[in-house]
């Protein structure tokens, strides 16, 4: 035995035996003694230990050296296993990199187990940036270790192997906390984890011995964590041999097992799910809904038990709420059942309990509370996503105060996830026009959101590993440089924009941008205060980001800003945005960004000859039509490895791009004569429009008919341009409610029947030449009422300009006069729908 107070010199000894004895004495003297641990840390014991663990063998196997490394590892894990104050002192880049290097098959098993213990303890302590991004080899060695220990476990089920394997599985989510880093682990870890989980099922069935339930549940949770859509579909396709045991586990006595099964099943069937489009919008595949129905009782029970366990659910496993959030995003019956079971009230009670305002006033939030809060808030946002009553219920239950409190909390790593979740709640709530106009006005959310958008992390919050010498921090993987665009001028700051932006910050900005989207609509009372905060440059910079979700949401926000007739806002937006950026976004690699960018143009050009001119002047008439032509010609071109489901899931966005492009033409055709002439001169686009009148999506067909109506509308010569605009506005309103149709009808029939315009006639003839008249005839039988009605208007206008079929034209005419409900230059709505997917 060496005297305790002078162990440090012995740790530095070259004699392995002395070192080993010192390590053992150290181990015995610190176990359970926090003061001792603190004292040794003060004297720099950490670096001695790391040095010993790092001892490299020079090809010669030295048992003594191995033993020293093991003991040092065990001592280190003993330091980690203390109160947070002490263990957080271990959390240094050097510790992490040393521990990570021991994670190989070639380390002594006891050292590996000790390292795994230390790592899991430390990483649970505090959110740490994805280790997999910092250590490129980590994924591979994890994969090898999991395979190795799985085999060992299935062969002889040794206790130490089970422990190591359990810790390895626990580590998987800890080294890849962000979504993208988890997905990056997938290629390495999916198959060994599937083997392990499936093996655990088989093992239980064949040997009758119940497989270690902790190992099984951590393995299932790890698999759920790294699951990609492709892997999910492969497993689902493998059939019931994998899913049936999982379903049975939903009723296991052990709650963690039940939770793990629920989260894997959720991941299996919601990631990469196909979204089927129908004429009425997006519907979910029925089997997903059925599965969600099975999961709801399990998850609700887990939540109820956690709440009943005391402390008002404060000790609830956050993963219950995260899984519930994913399930609830299905909407429909699934959400109804959760609400029926009182989920809104239960969650709000947790939120209110965990997030009292004074808790945030201190600017600190515990990691554990943070996860629980973010899960709860995500769940609330999912519950209200598709249902106005539930949004109302969320407000009535008193959630908004907590959300605002979260938004206005000082930024710390622990609060980051919570703020993202709070943004999602705000976005969900802002879907309600009523709430936008009432409760949210007073809530004081604006400052919080704008702060998040412009947020730059301060120095001490910088991620821990940024200055690790040994490992160069990997830059955010970015797309290749922009694809060929018509616009050559790319802002110079583009490339530097995101440098140094950590993925985590981008996620926060993305979520905040999603919350902004609805708040900047023209009927939102918050619009002015948000814009006054100088948000525009932040949004524009978001639209330039190379981080796709942020770029998408920013483009979306821009689209909403130019919605409506507030010319001042449009002016100020255009002063910041500039057409080059918009044109670039129209050619974005991501189809959903294209959709938003074209919707931006659609909104910009609506009822505004000024902006049509601005577009033509800045981009060039030919370029505009070339762009529209390209978009109207879009076909889904699946990537080589895309499966059918992926094709199904992106299909709607291609159609939406076509719709947006078509409406740009509708709006230009609603401009003055010059604009209409520009359209009619563009034969390629016109032919496309005529072709698209047979498109399977009714909105595309409707846009085409509107184009024809606008091109053949005969304006009263006596009307001043201002009056014409007023008429257009009236037409717009009439689209919202049928009540005003009658007066419009009478007004228009009298005028349009008499007035003759040679330009209109010529345009009508051109359209007829391209086959528009035949197509319209076909659309008279359209299944969608709106299309049929507008078709009648279009036919009436063309025919009254002499473009009708020569035979029986008179009958047609008479018949039409009686039934045409409304016409006039109609700009047919701007785009402001919000996508149902969360981009975070």
């Amino acid at each position, binding site marked *: 035995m060496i005297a305790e107070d002078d162990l440090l010199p012995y740790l530095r000894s070259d004699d392995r035996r002395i070192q080993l004895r010192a390590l053992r004495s150290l181990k015995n003297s610190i176990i359970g003694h926090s003061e001792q641990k603190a004292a040794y840390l003060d004297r720099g014991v950490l670096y001695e230990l790391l040095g010993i663990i790092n001892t490299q063998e020079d090809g010669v196997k030295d048992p003594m050296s191995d033993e020293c490394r093991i003991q040092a590892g065990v001592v280190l894990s003993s330091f980690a296993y203390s109160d947070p104050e002490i263990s957080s002192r271990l959390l240094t880049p050097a510790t992490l990199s040393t521990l990570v290097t021991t994670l190989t098959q070639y380390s002594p098993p006891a050292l590996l187990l000790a390292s795994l213990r230390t790592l899991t303890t430390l990483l649970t302590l505090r959110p740490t940036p994805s280790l997999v991004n910092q250590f490129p080899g980590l994924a591979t060695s994890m994969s090898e270790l999991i395979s190795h220990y799985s085999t060992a476990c299935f062969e002889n089920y040794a206790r130490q192997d089970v422990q190591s394997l359990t810790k390895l599985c626990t580590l998987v989510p800890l080294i890849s906390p962000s979504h993208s880093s988890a997905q990056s682990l997938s290629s390495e870890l999916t198959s060994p984890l599937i083997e392990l989980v499936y093996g655990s099922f088989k093992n239980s069935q064949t040997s009758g011995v119940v497989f270690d339930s902790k190992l099984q549940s951590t393995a299932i949770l790890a698999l759920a964590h790294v699951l990609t859509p492709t892997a999910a579909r492969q497993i689902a396709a493998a059939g019931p041999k994998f899913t049936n045991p999982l379903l049975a586990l939903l*009723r296991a006595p052990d709650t963690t097992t039940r939770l793990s099964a629920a989260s894997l099943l959720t991941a299996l069937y919601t990631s990469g799910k196909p979204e089927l489009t129908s004429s009425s919008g997006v519907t979910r595949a029925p*089997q997903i809904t059925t599965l969600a129905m099975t999961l709801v009782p*399990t998850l609700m029970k887990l939540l109820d038990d956690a709440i009943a366990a005391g402390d008002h659910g404060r000790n609830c496993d956050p993963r219950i709420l995260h899984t519930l959030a994913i399930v609830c995003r299905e909407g429909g019956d699934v959400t109804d059942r959760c609400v*029926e079971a009182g989920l809104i009230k239960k969650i709000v009670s947790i939120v209110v309990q965990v997030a009292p305002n004074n808790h945030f006033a201190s600017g600190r939030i515990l990691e554990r509370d943070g996860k629980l809060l973010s899960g709860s808030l995500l769940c609330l946002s999912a519950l209200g996503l598709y249902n*106005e009553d539930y949004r109302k219920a969320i407000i009535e239950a008193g959630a908004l105060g907590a959300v605002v409190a979260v938004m206005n909390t000082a930024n710390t790593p622990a609060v980051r996830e919570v703020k993202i979740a709070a943004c999602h709640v705000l976005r969900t709530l802002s*879907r309600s*026009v009523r709430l936008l106009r009432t409760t949210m006005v007073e809530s004081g959310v604006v400052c919080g959101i704008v702060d998040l958008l412009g947020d730059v992390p301060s120095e001490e919050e910088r991620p821990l590993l940024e200055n690790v010498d040994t490992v160069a921090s990997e830059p955010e993987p970015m797309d290749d440089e922009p694809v060929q665009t018509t616009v050559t001028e790319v802002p110079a700051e583009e490339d530097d924009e995101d440098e140094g932006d950590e993925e985590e910050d981008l996620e926060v900005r993305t979520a905040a941008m999603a919350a902004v989207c609805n708040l900047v609509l023209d009927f939102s009372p918050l619009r002015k205060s948000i814009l006054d905060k100088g948000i525009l440059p932040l949004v524009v910079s978001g639209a330039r980001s190379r981080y796709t979700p942020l770029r998408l949401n920013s483009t979306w926000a821009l689209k909403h800003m130019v919605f409506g007739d507030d010319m001042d806002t449009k002016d100020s937006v255009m002063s910041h945005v500039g057409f080059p950026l918009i044109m670039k976004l129209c050619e974005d690699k991501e189809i959903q960004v294209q959709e938003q960018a074209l919707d931006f143009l659609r909104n910009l050009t609506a009822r505004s000859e000024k902006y049509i001119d601005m577009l033509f002047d800045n981009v060039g008439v030919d370029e505009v039509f070339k762009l529209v032509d390209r978009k109207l010609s879009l076909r889904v071109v699946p990537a080589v490895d895309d499966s059918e489901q992926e094709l199904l899931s992106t299909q709607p966005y291609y159609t939406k791009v076509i719709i947006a492009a078509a409406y740009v033409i509708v709006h230009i055709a609603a401009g003055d004569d010059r604009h209409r002439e520009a359209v009619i001169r563009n034969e390629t686009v016109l032919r496309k429009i005529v072709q698209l009148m047979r498109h399977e999506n009714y909105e595309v067909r409707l846009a085409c008919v509107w184009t024809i109506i606008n091109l053949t509308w005969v304006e009263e010569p006596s009307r001043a341009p201002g009056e014409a605009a007023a008429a257009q506005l009236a037409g717009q309103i009439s689209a919202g409610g049928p009540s005003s149709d009658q007066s419009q009808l009478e007004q228009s029939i009298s005028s349009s029947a008499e007035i003759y315009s040679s330009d209109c006639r010529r345009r009508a003839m051109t359209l007829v030449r391209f086959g528009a008249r035949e197509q319209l005839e076909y659309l008279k039988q359209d299944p969608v009422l709106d299309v049929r009605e507008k078709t009648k208007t279009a036919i009436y206008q063309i025919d009254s300009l002499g473009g009708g079929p020569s035979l029986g034209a008179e009958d047609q005419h008479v018949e039409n006069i009686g039934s045409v409900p409304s016409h006039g230059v109609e700009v047919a709505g701007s785009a*402001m729908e919000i996508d*149902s997917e969360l981009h975070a």
Partner: protein
Amino acid sequence: MASFLHVPATKSHNSSFTTVVAPGLADRPANEYFVPKYLSSTCYADCVANSAVAAQLASKRAAQATGSPGLSAASSRSTFGLFDGQTTPHLYSYSDLSKHSPLPPGLPGFQAYDLQESSLASAEDVPPHLPSCWSPEGVSQSMEIFGDMLEVKFAGPPAKGNEQEAAAVRANHPIPPQCGLFYFEVEVMSRGKDGYAFPLPRTSTHTFERDDQIVNERSFIGVGFCGPKVQLNKMPGWVSDSWGYHGDDGNTFACQNSGKQYGPTFSTNDVIGCGVNFRNGTAFYTKNGIAFETAFKDLKGTLYPAVGMRTIGEHIRANFGQREFVFDIESYMREEKAKTYKQIHTFQPPLELLGGKDSATADTAITQSIHKLISSYLAHNGYVDSVRAFLGDVQKETNAFSAPKGVSYGDVNGEESEIAEDVEAINRQKIRTAVLEGNINRALKLTELFFPKVFEENPEILFQLKCRKFVELMRSCALAKEESEYTDDDEMPDISKDDEDTDMLDGEAPAKPNLADLLNEALRYGQNLHESYRNQTLLSSTTDVQKALNDIFALMAYPDPINSPVAYLLAEEGRAPVAEDLNSAILVSQGKSSVAPLERLIQHTTMLMRELAEQGGQSAFVNVQHDFLAP
């Protein structure tokens, strides 16, 4: 994908619930006991299983007596037929009861099998049935029962304008309180003609993306339970002795027609569950697998599951445990059990009962009693070394903690006398081992050797051993035969591990006997047995010698006894009772108790719990056998 939902991993009807067959009394048709999975570990389930075993034995004997041994097997198969899923559902209308017998012949699963020998099962021994289907005797005229007696449809005529008019059906049996918890589910197949689904008015006309259409669906169906005399023309809950949860308003009704706001409405495709908990006399409901709070309190009396309907076309299907439930009732059961045990553990009996004036002396007294129980049990069963080691440890512990205070452990030390009887205990242990190994010869010889008076005093034990010996011989034959079917070799492999031992003792059995020799030996022994006991009755015992002989000789009637209806006789499990009886007989002959105090304590507790459970209450959740003694 959809096919595996709500279906457990190994889905077959047999695995999700236990079916045991118990022939009823002579004048009743066969009755099936359905013990759903969530009740499988209860005392009630054990009672059912016990009575089933008894009945099975009886039926086997009966079958033998009538010379048609296959009958009992056929009967057991046919009862499985009720829920085998193969049967096409037939629509039986019970609206005119006079035309039908209560249980129409030919209904799958109800083939009457009249037990000819009914002496074995007395009325008290038969546990009450659980509700398992709707009752053709307890159904409104407006309703039809069909689909394995689980589905009910409102066929009309509709209620004549009167809101209070309805139709109800109740289950075939009341819920026996001794099951502790009863749960059933009702799936609404159709909400009927007048149930409705209407979109609720939107609170806001503006939505700028997909918002779900909120559809509120209701049905005029009520789910609950009622007493035996409740009229069948009212909804459950509307009249006295009747409780229900209604789909049109989501209200619960307890014996009166004004409701109480309880849960959501329900309609087509919803699964409503109803649980009656006898631990605290409450009931709760579930909808689609999610439980709501307690609905009713202070429940008692005879309660039948019941469903009420009000409009034409309403159609439900019940699940009394035949299929997996949508709600996880097994978790609920586990929790209820845990609550019961928590209460038991927190109970503080009066100190004087524990033999102490203060808690310290009481604790000491308890510890001493426990030590005594353990050492006497070990000694009783002849685990001599264990007794020594145990007492040694106790002594050490006592010295370490209590010696300074001088607390006397005199009682424990008093066990010394038992240790002195080491030899006797060791011998009993040897005999027991021999019986458990199936080496009856050795057991006979050892008993003769060490305890010569036992057989003299207990001729029925000798008879029992001899019978077992015959069974063991038949068993050897059967195993040898089975093995010969797998090996082409004429020579038989070892059939018994203790051959060597047997050789040493009596040199009787050859190391590798062939099948013919074995059979001969068995026959010879059987003949001897028959000869010596042919006209004997053992006056002192209740053993029916002739019946016992008939039973075991039945083994010879089958060329392949292992796969015959009497295979149960060959089971190794049959050795333990013989060993127990022999051990007890030896102990009695030595002037000791035949049962160890620990065993007596268990027997006593078990019986107490059973008695208590008859009235329902907490004790139904305690199963001494399962919770403490199961491996």
